[in-house]
């Protein structure tokens, strides 16, 4: 089934339901903030959120009460410090208890790869001498049938829905990623459904190189044009990472009230159209 162009509201409401397993990926770059806000606005609950590097947008989803469980490998505000909402959910159970399943980056990168590849599990040289296997039953070990070498195994990641942001789609719905591409392509291919927000929709991809990082339209569910939709993350070629806002988030999120006030003002009373101005402000 070929991708459909939709509004963000329709894309989220038609693809994501309470209790789903959702991956919103982006390795610092191209994080789908606008789509995350739409999930909060629609009050979707009990999500199992998957992401290698849950940062601000997952802090917001967790603080807003959308998440039941988090599967992750590094949960912090990069270069700044802790994610206060994540930390409070784990340490104090606010707004409610958050179950966690913790991995290493290598494990999750391999698990996305395995999900995209239709495998039930990923096999890799990992977790040797590390303690996570003691507390995470989804880490097992197998033996290489040729050498006897002990290898780690983790279940493949197969989200119900993957949400990512990309630079461009063309009018047919093919999607282009450029720059730090993270695990986005794998996360989409591993999922049952996908929502892709893009900076712009262009007529064609005639000038795109043969070996670009792309998804053809039949491998994608919904496409939404949201200029600036990654802010305060960034879109290479469009606007820069708003590092100042990542630093400011540390103060906003530290306190429950200031967090809730921010969500109310910028998310509950905001919309995807607000992101274009943020894109313009970070062009430099």
């Amino acid at each position, binding site marked *: 089934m070929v991708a459909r162009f939709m509004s963000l509201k329709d894309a989220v409401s038609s693809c994501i339901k309470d209790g789903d397993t959702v991956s919103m990926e982006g390795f610092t770059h191209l994080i789908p903030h606008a789509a995350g806000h739409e999930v909060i606005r629609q009050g979707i609950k009990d999500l199992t959120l998957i992401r290698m590097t849950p940062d601000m947008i997952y802090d917001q989803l967790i603080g807003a009460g959308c998440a039941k469980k988090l599967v992750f490998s590094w949960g912090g505000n990069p270069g700044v410090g802790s994610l206060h909402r994540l930390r409070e959910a784990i340490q104090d159970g606010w707004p409610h208890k958050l179950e966690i399943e913790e991995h290493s980056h290598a494990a999750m990168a391999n698990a996305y790869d395995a999900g995209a590849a239709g495998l039930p599990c990923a096999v890799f040289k990992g977790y040797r001498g590390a303690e996570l296997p003691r*507390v995470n039953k989804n880490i097992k070990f197998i033996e290489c049938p040729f050498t006897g070498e002990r290898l780690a195994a983790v279940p493949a990641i197969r989200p119900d829905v993957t949400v990512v942001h990309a630079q461009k789609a063309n009018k047919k719905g093919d999607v282009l990623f450029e720059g730090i591409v993270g695990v986005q392509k794998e996360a989409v291919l591993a999922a049952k459904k996908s929502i892709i927000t893009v900076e712009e929709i262009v007529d064609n991809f005639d000038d795109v190189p043969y070996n670009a990082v792309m998804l053809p339209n039949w491998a994608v569910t919904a496409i939404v044009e949201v200029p600036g939709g990654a802010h305060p993350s960034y879109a290479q070629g469009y606007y820069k990472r708003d590092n100042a806002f990542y630093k400011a988030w540390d103060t906003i999120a530290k306190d429950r009230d200031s967090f809730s006030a921010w969500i109310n003002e910028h998310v509950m009373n905001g919309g995807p159209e607000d992101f274009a101005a943020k894109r313009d402000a970070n062009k430099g």
Partner: protein
Amino acid sequence: MVDYTPTEMMTVSASRALKNDDVCFVGIGMPSAACNLARLTHAPELTLIYESGTIGTKPDVLPLSIGDGELCETAVNTVPVPEMFRYWLQGGKISVGFLGAAQLDKYGNINTTVIGDYDNPKVRLPGGGGAPEIATSCGEVFLVMKQTKRGFVEKIDFITSLGHGTGGNDRASYGVDTKGPSRLITDLCIMEPHPVGKQFIVTSIHPGVTREDIIANTGWTVEFADEIAQTPVPDANELQILRDLHARTAKAHEGQQ
């Protein structure tokens, strides 16, 4: 002689550990400053790799995250994250992993997961990220970390990433054939693992630091090598380049809104 801070002493010492032909997997924070300082001074051909997939990057300012745009724009090539961890790290292509820690023991085992019990943590830290496999797949590991009694402990609360395990040949018992932590650079001294026991021993002390300072800031019983060097102080060029780098970085990160 030029004035410098203990952090500058640490960063400069750490940068000197890198060679021009190293391929270095860079952790964020202190490692990133040391690695880029090395590239901007004595090791211009040093290959820096960040886990975001950027290979051979030459950022003009220090990235705030491991995935800032500068890393990609100045890289030789940018690959997907699964490829980074599979072909480059696990594939044995990286000579040095440069890591920091929240807690460290004398065998170089690293905790960046939790302070306290895993299920009921006193402090929930960000977690392992790339470190568990950086620690085992890179040819060797350099550690850089400010020395405090809270950080340098007899027993870490959680083994996020393997160092030399319980010492001796314990590391190899996990099927790991890489060298592991071969150098620990702090704001007070440089430590290297004992050739047999693998516990860290102090091999070089920074100027102005006493043995008592080191003991007072270490949670394990400190061992000193028979012959201890005095760490060469940062030279004026290194300090200038490091300070310029930090100044450019501060300007770049505050300049946006």
